[in-house]
């Protein structure tokens, strides 16, 4: 860079002439406007705003002017450079936006391509159904009780008013374990869980017990040596059949739809007295016009759902609950059976065959 040119004639410094600065500015702005893409603009920037650009060179000459001329020339060149930079920036934004748009357009993919790279899992529908039922009761303040599958004979039978000579013992074909005189069975019902609950807790008791149970039934479309039951037990002061009915009506409407109610028919279970069979209103035809042709309830308008009753005072006594103070009710339903008619499943065996196509169909929600 040269030092101050003290005897320089401003008239002689052509680049700083007003018309000349204006020319440089016009040329720069024209080039900027003409830049078609970011690469071109980069070149324009070098040519018209870079260190070697005419305006930059002109700017360097300002120092050579006499002091009285510097201000005016400085202003002129400064304004020109400012205008050029602004135009560059504006053009840069436009071109960048255009570039990005083009890029995005070019990057478009076929979103209909498959995306399932990882296999999809699922939970067993009976697990889901059990959890759904448990949740219905937990929402009412009940609790979920559990107990062992291999169970003491006394808890599975005797404590439930099924003495050794009770005819009803033969109604439930029991798996016995060796040695036979050890009195250990595969539970035939989830009722021993109820007995265990009463034996270990003080009333009030409000529990449901979903779980696996076993009977020596041959395996076919409607029978299985292992199946799933849910039982409920309430022991509290002043409990009546009306509470049982209220609970089952609520359960039915939650599981099968608003307005679905239950019907009681007298029955017999050693565990309860009075005992009732529970029918649930067919949730497909609702006992209405379509009843005669309804497949779900076979034209009956009602579906056999389970058994229930008022807990037999003998059971309360065996389980350490004072029948003079407390009364209770109990009910039991087949989870598999409920599932079968709720989901229109014809053959029970689908639940236990383990074909992943079956469980997968339900995902993680039913």
């Amino acid at each position, binding site marked *: 860079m040269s030092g101050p040119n003290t005897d320089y004639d401003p008239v002689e410094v052509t680049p700083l002439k007003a018309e000349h600065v204006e020319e440089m500015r016009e040329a720069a702005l024209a080039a900027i406007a003409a830049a078609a893409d970011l690469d071109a603009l980069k070149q324009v920037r070098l040519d018209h705003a870079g260190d070697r650009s005419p305006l930059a060179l002109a700017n360097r000459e300002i120092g050579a002017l006499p002091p009285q001329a510097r201000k005016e020339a400085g202003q002129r060149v400064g304004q020109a450079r400012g205008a050029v930079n602004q135009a560059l920036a504006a053009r840069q934004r436009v071109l960048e936006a255009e570039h990005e748009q083009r890029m995005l357009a070019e990057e478009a993919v076929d979103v209909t391509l498959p995306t399932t790279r990882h296999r999809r899992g699922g939970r067993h529908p009976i697990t889901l159904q059990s959890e759904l039922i448990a949740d219905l009761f937990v929402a009412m303040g009940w609790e979920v009780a*559990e107990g062992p599958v291999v169970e003491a004979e006394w808890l599975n039978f005797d404590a439930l008013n099924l003495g050794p000579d009770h005819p009803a013992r033969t109604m439930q074909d029991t798996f016995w374990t060796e040695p036979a005189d050890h009195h250990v069975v595969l539970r035939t019902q989830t009722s021993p869980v109820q007995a265990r609950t009463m034996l270990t807790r003080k009333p009030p008791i409000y529990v449901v017990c979903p779980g696996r149970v076993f009977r020596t039934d041959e395996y076919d479309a409607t029978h299985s040596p292992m199946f799933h039951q849910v039982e409920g037990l309430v022991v509290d002061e002043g409990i009546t059949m009306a509470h049982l009915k209220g609970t089952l009506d609520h359960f039915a409407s939650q599981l099968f739809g608003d307005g679905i109610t239950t019907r009681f028919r007298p029955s017999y279970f050693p565990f309860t007295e009075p005992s009732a069979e529970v029918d649930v209103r067919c949730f497909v035809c609702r006992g209405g016009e379509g009843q005669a042709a309804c497949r779900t309830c076979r034209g009956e308008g009602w579906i056999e759902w389970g058994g229930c009753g008022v807990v037999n005072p003998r059971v309360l006594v065996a389980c350490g609950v004072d029948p003079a103070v407390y009364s209770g009710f109990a009910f039991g339903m087949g989870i598999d059976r409920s599932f079968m008619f709720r989901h229109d499943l014809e053959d029970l065996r689908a639940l236990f065959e383990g074909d992943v196509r079956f469980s997968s169909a339900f995902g993680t929600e039913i």
Partner: protein
Amino acid sequence: MKAPLSWILEHVDVPAGTTTEEITDRLTLTGLKLEAVESPGREITGPLVIGRVLTMKPEPQKNGKTINWCTVDVGDANGTGEPQGIVCGAHNFAPGDLVVTVLPGGVLPGGFEISARKTYGHVSAGMICSARELGLGDDHDGIIVLPEDAGKPGEDVRPVLGLDEETIELEINPDRAYALSIRGIAREVLVSVEGASGFRDPALRDTPPANPDGHPVLVEDPEGCPVFVARRVTGFDPSAPTPDHIVRRITAAGMRPISLAVDVTNYVMLETGRPIHGYDADKVQGALVVRRARPGERLTTLDGADRALDPGDLVVADDSGIIGLGGVMGGETTEMSGSTTSILVEAAHWDAVSMFRTGRRHKITSEAGKRNERGVDPTICEAAADRVVELLVEHGGAVADPGVTVVGTPPAMPTIQVAGDLAARVSGMEISAERSAECLRAVGCEVSGSGTLSVTPPPWRPDLTDAQDFSEEVIRLVGYDQVPSVLPTPPSGRGLTRAQQLRRRIGRTLAGEGYVEVVNFPFVGEADLDDLGLPADDPRRDLLRLSNPLSAEAAFMTSTLLPGLLRTAGKNVGHGTTDVAVFETATVTLPRHAGPAPILPVDRRPSDEELAALDAALPAQPLHLAVVATGDADAPGWWGGARQVGWADAVEAVRSAAAALGLEVEASAAALAPWHPGRCAELSVDGEVIGHAGEVHPVVCRAFGLPARSVAAEVDLDVLIDKAVHLRPAPSYSSYPVAKEDVALVVDTSVPAADVEAALRDGAGDLLESIRLFDVYTGDQVGEGRKSLAYALRFRASDRTLKEGEAAAARDAAVALAAERTGAVQRA
């Protein structure tokens, strides 16, 4: 119980116009559930009338058959009154006979529509019917020839043949044995059907008084047999047929007609509920003795089975020895036959529990046993025997012997005190003591008192023993449909327990990882464990055996979920699903070889010690989780190739489950069946072993129909859930800059990566924020038997920016400790 409706209505009246459906609806609502209504003529519609054969002209045909061209008088049933021309192929009738004639427009069973049609050169306008064509049995093809008093030509023939008879099938609960009879059902109709009246008790009859002239009977065990009645008839015609109406009724009730003598005893049993046994009196030698069997005694029963008797069995003996299992089944030696002319009729009341035990012991189920073991009215033995005698006299030409033997008296029914408001308290309905008494009287109880009712049940209701039993009777008659619907209000609950929540979480996690849950039976056989390759001393071979398995091949409760799950995976592969990932959570059974579970009293709560003894007798039943996977873990696609399932997936499945509980799983090398001995990880949490995972042994894969390189894991979920992290403190982390250092270490291939990482961690000190193994290399560059492990280390201080060289120094310290512990050499 199947009961012809006409039989029931012989003993009770219902208001005119009451339909079958109205009756069965009421019976269902009061506890006798309708199973089905059957009617033999249910499929027959249209004109089915009595016809008289006027003329009958045999016409031989070219095909060798001879048909009969008949004219049949069908009265006005054909609308013209003219004889009907009908072609008939059968020959077992003659002009003048009354026959069953179906006219055009009629439909026979099987949807067989009758119309006038041209055949054998005539227009045949109808058909003369055989029993088979009417669906009344298929033993003969012959035309039904009606008795002369059947009716006039043109009249509907249905009532004559019993085709319009409806039989209702009712489900009888075990406590309602009285309803296993027409008598009991008629009584239920009386109390449940609106307006029913006029009950006529078939067991209420004048019977001749006992006298010393009857067959001698000695009851040595009056508790086992409180009442024994014996009657005798002689001169019985063994060839006498059973009257049609009896055959029809017992057939409709589901019993097979055999002979008049047998049919009559069955008829009376169905009618009264009291089982009757008939002996061929000429084969009985001397007095009948009722006693318990003695050890070693045997009996060949009517079904031909030779049975070793138990001292608990009640038997009937004569001078020749035992001739019957009392109340359950008679013996062969005194069986009635086609030549029996004298019949000894036994109507005895037996102890129900003994009946139940004997039936169960000898695996005999019979109509008699079913009633005797549930409880029969003990007061009707004389009436039932008398009714049998009456029918044998009436239909078999027999002569009643004047001797009447009656041993014992019916036990008295107990009187029970029932609180007058009990039914109200139990049902939640407003039921007054008066209403209760009214209901109880309706079912036959004697009731006195008002506040507290003194109730004596009728003799046919031995099931009514507790106050609660009576409340049930009251409530069912008031109507279960009247019970209001009231939601109880429980105290606020604790919700799901933590274990219950965590089990769900594990299930969801595994489903999210791509595993599909399955449910297998817990039954297993030794061959399954052989397939797993378990050595003889493997603790998983200690199994709980079932006494009565459904299949000898699966006679045990399983100790491991793997056989079932591997089998399931194999089946899926067999069905063409080549990429399978399944899981199961279920309890397994691990015997404890403890003593027997006591049978505790039921008249009080057992003590805590007694309850503990129950639990101690049970096997351990921990909850297990198992996974099996095979095929592709990641599918091939436009994104790239497939990733096959590998041993690490099995470990990772468990790690994912554990992570859902906030737990970290450590793996160490193990060699356990059914895994590949070099690709099996023992998994532990906090130093406690929870199970194993890895690649399944190729031999095991083959045994279960799985491709090689399938993987599996099995862990104890109870332990995992027990250790689940609860109330984890919030983490704090540094916002100062991170310093990254990578190191590659070469070690012997036998050195576990986990050991190298542990050494690096320990050596790096507090500044180490994280460490990640990002590459494992084996090959020429590191030499035979060596592997290179490349780690990315991140360092950071919690309170300051690290100074130049601090991170490098920590890295060097880490490498130095790794070198010291594992012989690691830093790779250049």
